């Protein structure tokens, strides 16, 4: 299961697969904070005015999972290790409450994390050996499992990523994308 923790990534993927958070075959979940950020943040209101179309599609993790024994155990471990030293910069990790809740979900339910936040990525990688998943890797997974066809409209959305200053994608995922779709990945 992919847990999507980056607002821009979530919005871009929603345009490609609007049902990704309500159709379990897509293997995607989003924390509640993502919904707040998408619909309340001024910048996103201006930058992505079309986001309102997806209001009903943005379903978030049910509150019940935060009551499970697995989550509570992981939450405690995260709480105790969240101030450990980040070996990359020698400073304690500075995670928010939302970051810690996301990290506890990833640990408790063995989710795969997709975020642009380097601190959360570093923490989960250093403390739990969890690697970050790029959005293109998620698309490749959907394509490989034939959950959708790739067409000109979807290719155009991908071209929009650059305009929206989305991070560059890993080379191996670009290669995989080109092999699956037979199309050229929009150059950065």
């Amino acid at each position: 299961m992919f847990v999507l923790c980056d607002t821009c990534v979530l919005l871009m993927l929603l345009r490609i697969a609007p049902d990704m958070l309500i159709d379990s075959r897509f293997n995607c979940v989003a924390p509640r904070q993502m919904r707040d950020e998408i619909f309340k943040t001024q910048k996103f209101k201006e930058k992505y005015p079309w986001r309102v179309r997806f209001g009903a599609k943005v379903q978030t993790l049910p509150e019940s999972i935060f009551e499970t024994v697995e989550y509570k155990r992981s939450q405690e471990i995260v709480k105790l290790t969240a101030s450990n030293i980040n070996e990359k910069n020698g400073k304690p990790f500075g995670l928010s409450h939302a970051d810690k809740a996301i990290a506890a979900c990833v640990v408790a339910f063995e989710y795969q994390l997709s975020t642009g936040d380097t601190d959360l990525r570093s923490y989960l990688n250093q403390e739990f050996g969890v690697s970050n998943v790029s959005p293109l890797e998620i698309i490749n997974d959907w394509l490989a499992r034939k959950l959708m066809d790739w067409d000109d409209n979807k290719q155009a959305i991908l071209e929009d990523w650059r305009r929206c200053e989305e991070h560059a994608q890993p080379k191996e995922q670009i290669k995989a994308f080109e092999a699956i779709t037979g199309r050229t990945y929009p150059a950065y």
Partner: protein
Amino acid sequence: MKWNGELLKSVCEQRGLSKLKLAEQLAVSRQTVYSWFADQVPKGHHLLKLCNVLGVEPASLFESEPSVVSVPVHRAKSNAKVTKERRQISHEVAEDFAPLFSGVSRAELLPVIRTDGFDENKVRETAAKLRQLAGIPEAKPCTYEHVFGLLSKLGCYVVFVPFPAEVKSYAFYSEVHGHRVVFVNRHSNVLDLVFFLLHEAVHAAFDEQKEISSELEDFCDAVAGQVQFPPEYIQFVKGLLTKLDDAQQASIIKKMAVENGHALYGLTKILFPDNKPLHGIVSKIDNGLRKNILTLDGLFFKSGESSGFLSIYRLLSPLFYSLIQSRADSLSARRVGELMGLESELDAAQVKTLIAKKQEP
């Protein structure tokens, strides 16, 4: 909570588990187990396995540390009482910020108020010193800009956070890792804040004790009152109100309040402590004024831009702004958002980028 290798050692001994056996069960080297015994904190995934293998709660392998936060909320809004629960919740609010202050050296020289009594003369002397420090023009009331300037000169880190509803306070002073910190409720209207912030400023200037006496509370109130409304201003307004009826008096007080940026009620209570009908009239006028005067939230998010938000933040709380700036590279974007109370109004990643650039907003 601090990792304690001795606690792990003791649990292993109780269960008859040697270092070698433990290392085998966790699929780690013996050297790794040695390092945990020698106070090296295990990685998160090792800790999870350790707890499963040993059948213990994670916290049982850590020891408590003394709190680095003191002086939680000690003054609540109007009729609300300071309860144990309120103190506890405000303490938790302050605790959440404690790691940010860890290792930050304290300014060597900070203004301190010392007094050998709490009588009327001491109130006047202390108020005069604070007014001078805040740079408030003679015979003028203290505005919210003055009070934030005063807090900064007193070396206070001002932290704007939305208070949990249970706290029922506008602001509270706290010492965090020995630093003077004033927590301010982000949802407060600036009209209501001045007196309460001045009250906390007096506490800060005292380099607060952990226990606060009612005598000191009364002293802080009296000083805050005189810093906000100096006797000359009171006399001046009083002179304008002679031989007028309640409605006319309320109208004049409103004019003065709007001109000088304060609420009517506080001033009216000083001028006419027993005139309840007049108190009722001015309270209604205050409610009307509040609709046109921004809350702190309104002030921060007025521009709708991250740069505008940071400009206001830096103006009202330069010390805390600089602290976040110096730590931004080791804080996640969401943590920066949380510490600065963005509440999803602005993009935390953008705010972090701007503040980390170390450019003036």
